[in-house]
């Protein structure tokens, strides 16, 4: 059975049981039973068909976390399209690069986001989400005239060469390797299935009944852990649109959440701001990844948040790649490599190399970057340095010029490029300081092209060009 067929069949079998519960603004709660969710998938699928979306088309998806997001992904999978889950946070610099590579035939977005994507619509099929419906935009996008002051640059030609999208390709997921621009990892349906299967094995999914979803579905791990895993293994997924610790604690209690997959920074927020009316352990299982979990955090989270804490490692090109096993977790490690994955550490520097069916086969339309990442023998260079301790991987440092800020990947060269585009900036150094991004910016006082910006003005400038989480919190300005 196809992945989409299996996902729909599993949801249908749960008929009147809740598969998704959503908490929106003002803690408004809505429930999707298995039968309702299957009808939603069908309805979204019909909208895709009526709008002219056909098999093989590339479809860019810009949606908020929701049951609707999950239904859209399944509907796209069932029609053999190739979807690209993209962040609503992306701004001109990221969008220009992604659209240049992806050249999507269609895009799906929230009604509130449509104007933001207007420069990229062209003659593409544009589908707008309005509540739980998807409709083709009747706007004449061809009449759009870019604002001359807008940083949205016209799309350049796609890069030379291609990495073919083969049969079985589910999606193109954009990530970074320190080149200064995003790369679209080609992800197969088998990778998603493999990811959900190994994750289910590590956490013993049969013991999980209700999970809290705050991880972004625009990330591959969010899709694997928060869409495919709960649907394939009969876990109720409770979505919360807020990450306020007070709200999350209330929902964990109200919904009897027993499985909590989050980045360590969110776990830290929950631990630092415990509920006022109770104390002690909140959930059975906490699974962390995305950024480093210290031994001290592991112990504290076990004492205050969860009976068991499993830390793991993954990347867009292979997720999860390693994860501690339930009942056998070891603090300070990212767990053993998942089953079906070959691993080795490069002799010269300890870079983790991986190989297996769960690994991406390259970057879309980026043959040079693909060759640099994948050896002729099929070993994928993760760009991360590890050591091995009794079969467990232990993250040491990034080899590539990317860093994690609150679990989100930041390409230092991309941030530097964005700042350097300011007409009064002469030189920039960007680095991670603790968990905060810092930039030392040398302004060019000799030029009269524009006023020298303050740190606040530079952040405003960057806000139109980069996702907010990539804008340095600390900006130090110096004159040339």
């Amino acid at each position, binding site marked *: 059975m196809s992945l989409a067929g299996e996902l729909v069949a599993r949801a249908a079998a749960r008929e009147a049981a809740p598969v998704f519960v959503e908490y929106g603004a003002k803690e408004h709660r809505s429930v999707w039973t298995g039968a309702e969710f299957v009808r939603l998938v069908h309805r979204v699928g019909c909208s895709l068909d009526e709008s002219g979306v056909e098999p093989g088309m590339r479809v860019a998806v810009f949606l908020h976390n929701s049951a609707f997001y999950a239904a859209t992904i399944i509907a796209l999978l069932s029609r053999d399209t190739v979807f690209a889950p993209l962040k609503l946070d992306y701004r001109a610099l990221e969008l220009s690069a992604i659209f240049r590579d992806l050249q999507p035939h269609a895009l799906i977005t929230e009604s509130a986001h449509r104007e933001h994507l207007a420069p990229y619509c062209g003659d593409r099929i544009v589908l707008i989400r309005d509540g739980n419906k998807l409709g083709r935009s009747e706007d004449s996008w061809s009449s759009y005239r870019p604002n001359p002051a807008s940083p949205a640059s016209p799309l350049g030609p796609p890069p030379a060469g291609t990495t073919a999208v083969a049969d079985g390709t589910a999606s193109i997921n954009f990530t970074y390797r320190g080149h200064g621009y995003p790369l679209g990892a080609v992800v197969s349906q088998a990778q998603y299935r493999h990811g959900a299967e190994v994750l289910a094995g590590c956490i013993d999914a049969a013991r999980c009944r209700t999970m809290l979803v705050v991880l972004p579905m625009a990330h591959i791990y969010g899709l694997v852990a928060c869409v495919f895993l709960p649907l394939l293994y009969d876990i109720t997924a409770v979505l919360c649109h*807020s990450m*306020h610790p007070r709200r999350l604690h209330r929902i964990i209690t109200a919904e009897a959440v027993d499985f909590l997959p989050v980045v360590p920074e969110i776990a830290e927020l929950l631990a630092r*701001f415990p509920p006022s009316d109770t104390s002690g352990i909140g959930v059975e299982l906490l699974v962390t990844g995305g950024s480093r979990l210290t031994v001290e955090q592991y112990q504290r989270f076990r004492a205050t948040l969860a009976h068991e804490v499993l830390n793991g490692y993954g990347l867009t090109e292979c997720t999860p790649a390693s994860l501690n096993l339930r009942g056998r977790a070891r603090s300070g490690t990212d767990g053993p490599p998942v089953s079906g994955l070959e691993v080795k550490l490069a002799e010269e520097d300890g870079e983790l190399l991986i190989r297996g069916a769960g690994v991406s086969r390259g970057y879309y339309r980026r043959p040079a970057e693909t060759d640099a990442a994948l050896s002729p023998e099929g070993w994928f260079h993760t760009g991360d340095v590890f050591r091995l301790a009794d079969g467990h991987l232990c993250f040491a440092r990034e080899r590539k010029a990317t860093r994690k800020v609150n679990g989100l990947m930041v390409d230092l060269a991309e941030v530097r490029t964005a700042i350097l585009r300011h007409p009064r900036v002469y030189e920039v150094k960007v680095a991670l300081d603790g968990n905060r991004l810092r930039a030392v910016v040398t302004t060019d006082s000799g030029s009269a092209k524009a006023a020298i910006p303050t740190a606040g003005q530079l952040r405003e400038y960057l806000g139109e060009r980069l996702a907010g989480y990539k804008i340095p919190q600390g*900006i130090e300005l110096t004159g040339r």
Partner: protein
Amino acid sequence: MQENVRETIRKVFSEVCKVRVEQLHDDVRVREELGIDSLLGLQLLAACEQKLGVEVDEEACAELETIGEFIEYFEAPTKR
């Protein structure tokens, strides 16, 4: 009470953003000038709520732009 709210909020911002209290004037824009992102914003909000013993509307707080607006919001119970 209102002086306590002002002092508490400025102290929380100072601790979370690693900025001296004296620099936190009412007209300081929290996102552009202090570089507060969504996670840091949640940390600030949760810390202010914890120290002042109140619960505020998270969506309404997302609209606040300056330190002064934060103080005014936490000082005026009717707006909560």
